[in-house]
């Protein structure tokens, strides 16, 4: 049977290639989007653990964590909590660097653990009160800037005091400014985006998060990357968009396979009639048709997986987010792509296979 399936697909190679290509495009889209969201999730992990924190406190109900607004006074109260060792405020300035809109400028207390966790590769920390800024090594490399150069943030020039590396993509692709200066730039005195918290040894993140959310109504505590993605409307939107695309790919792919196989059985009535005549059961003939559909889909899915891996990289460049999102291909992501490919073959092959079981050999032979 396998040999007959292979032979039939090779015999109509152009049709096989076109159908498989359609499926490949669908599967590639899915794999590329999955690798993109996986990358986004890894980036979100960076957002959760900024400055080596265990969790981040944000305003509840915001469409994007970067738009959160908290009062600066919260930091002192949080610092007093028994589970908390250190708390430091952060003000995030998004699209503040005109030359790289993806870069985030962090307004951080110079004495806070966030600023202290930055490893300086060159230069030194800014003097208190000076118009100086620290720049991440990725951003510095991207903009070809060094210590002593000028970085413009929201129209104001800041002298680069040093270049740092933290190992967190968000931080290394951005810059760090004193909190007071950032608040002045954003015209948000006494406000911050989040409070980053380091927990006491032995304290459980989930329990601490529940306790903080109870104590400070209107806040949400993000402890893991999935939560960060869910908290942001963009992350939710992407997840739902992917689901829609998967469903569309399934429907379009299945219709394409069904159409191809239906045309194929009309053309091959003589062959199908012959198989029935020589004693192939309807189920066996239907299996042949279904097998051909699945084989075409597998071919398409295999090509789609390859294109999807390449497409994931192209997607982040096309969206202009390569500075802080690296597509991440996982076995589960590839598996889901393959699963969709096989599902397309099975769904698309069911109707033609069912039609075959309804054909009587004589009619088929007369038609062939």
């Amino acid at each position, binding site marked *: 049977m396998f040999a007959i399936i292979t032979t039939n697909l090779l015999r109509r190679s152009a049709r096989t290639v076109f159908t498989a290509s359609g499926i490949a495009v669908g599967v590639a889209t899915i794999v590329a989007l999955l690798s993109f969201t996986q990358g986004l999730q890894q980036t979100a992990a960076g957002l959760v653990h900024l400055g080596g924190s265990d969790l981040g406190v944000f305003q509840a109900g915001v469409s994007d964590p970067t738009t959160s607004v908290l009062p600066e006074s919260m930091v002192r109260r949080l610092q007093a909590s028994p589970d908390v060792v250190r708390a430091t405020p952060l003000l995030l300035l998004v699209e503040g660097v005109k030359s790289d809109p993806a870069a985030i400028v962090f307004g951080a207390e110079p004495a806070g653990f966030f600023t202290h966790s930055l490893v300086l590769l060159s230069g030194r920390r800014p003097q208190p009160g000076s118009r100086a800024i620290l720049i991440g090594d990725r951003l510095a490399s991207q903009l070809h800037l060094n210590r002593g150069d000028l970085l413009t943030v929201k129209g104001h020039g800041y002298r680069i005091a040093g270049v740092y590396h933290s190992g967190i993509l968000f931080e290394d692709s951005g810059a760090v400014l004193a909190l007071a200066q950032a608040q002045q730039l954003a015209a948000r005195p006494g406000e911050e985006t989040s409070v980053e918290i380091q927990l006491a040894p032995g304290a459980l993140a989930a329990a601490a998060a529940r306790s903080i959310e109870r104590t400070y109504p209107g806040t949400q505590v993000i402890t893991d990357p999935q939560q960060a993605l869910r908290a942001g409307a963009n992350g939710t939107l992407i997840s739902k968009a992917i689901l829609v695309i998967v469903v569309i790919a399934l429907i379009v792919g299945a219709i394409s396979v069904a159409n191809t196989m239906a045309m194929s059985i009309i053309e091959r009535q*003589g062959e199908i009639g012959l198989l029935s005549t020589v004693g192939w059961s309807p189920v*066996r003939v239907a299996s042949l048709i279904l097998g051909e559909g699945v084989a075409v889909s597998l071919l398409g899915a295999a090509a789609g997986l390859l294109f999807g891996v390449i497409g994931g990289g192209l997607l982040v460049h096309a969206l202009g987010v390569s500075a802080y999102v690296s597509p991440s291909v996982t076995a589960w992501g590839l598996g889901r792509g393959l699963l969709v490919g096989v599902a397309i073959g099975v769904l698309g092959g069911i109707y033609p296979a069912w039609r075959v079981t309804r054909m*009587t*050999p004589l009619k088929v032979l007369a038609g062939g």
Partner: protein
Amino acid sequence: MSTQVGAGVLVDGVSKSFGRISSLVDVSLLVEPGEAVAITGRSGSGKSTLLALIGGLEQPDAGRVLIDGQEIWKQPRPARARRELVGFVFQRHLLLGALSARANVEVPLIGAGMHHRARRRRALSLLEEVGLADRAEHLPSELSGGESQRVAVARALANEPRLLLADEPTGALDSHTSERVLDMIFQLRDRLGMTLMVISYDSAVGARADRTITLADGRIDSPTAAAFKR
């Protein structure tokens, strides 16, 4: 190849219509096991329909067709019953163009679920039987019309049928090739002992058969035997 007893055929009051056209009207017929019967008649007289009903490719509207006492359509697995009892040869060879002669002969054996090595052995043995052992790996496009029809005969014999139904098997061949194919079919029938029913306009077929039946306007004028059961 093993020799076995042919199947008896009873056609009992069978009628069949396609739309408003009555193809067969109350046809009854008895064929003894091992008998060779030629079926003649004008175009549209119902010959092919009769063969299709006997072979279980269609269900009669009325009456019944028994092969060795079994109604193929009433079996729990009609395809299996057809495979085990009946072999078909058509006017067109209907070989699968992308498969070699050997693979074409193997097709019915795939339907029977035979292991691929056993299939291969049997297909080669059948091709030897029809004088085409040296053409086993050739595609149908590389075979002559006569050779293709011989492959079709080998395919029809693959599951050792007890009844061979041939619908104008030489209709698409020249007279010399027809002669050779007919020789082969009748020799195989003599050697294997199967029942043979052949539709043909060729008087040579009638001369070789044990009996000739003529159909006209869906009716048969041969004497009808009493109910037959093994």
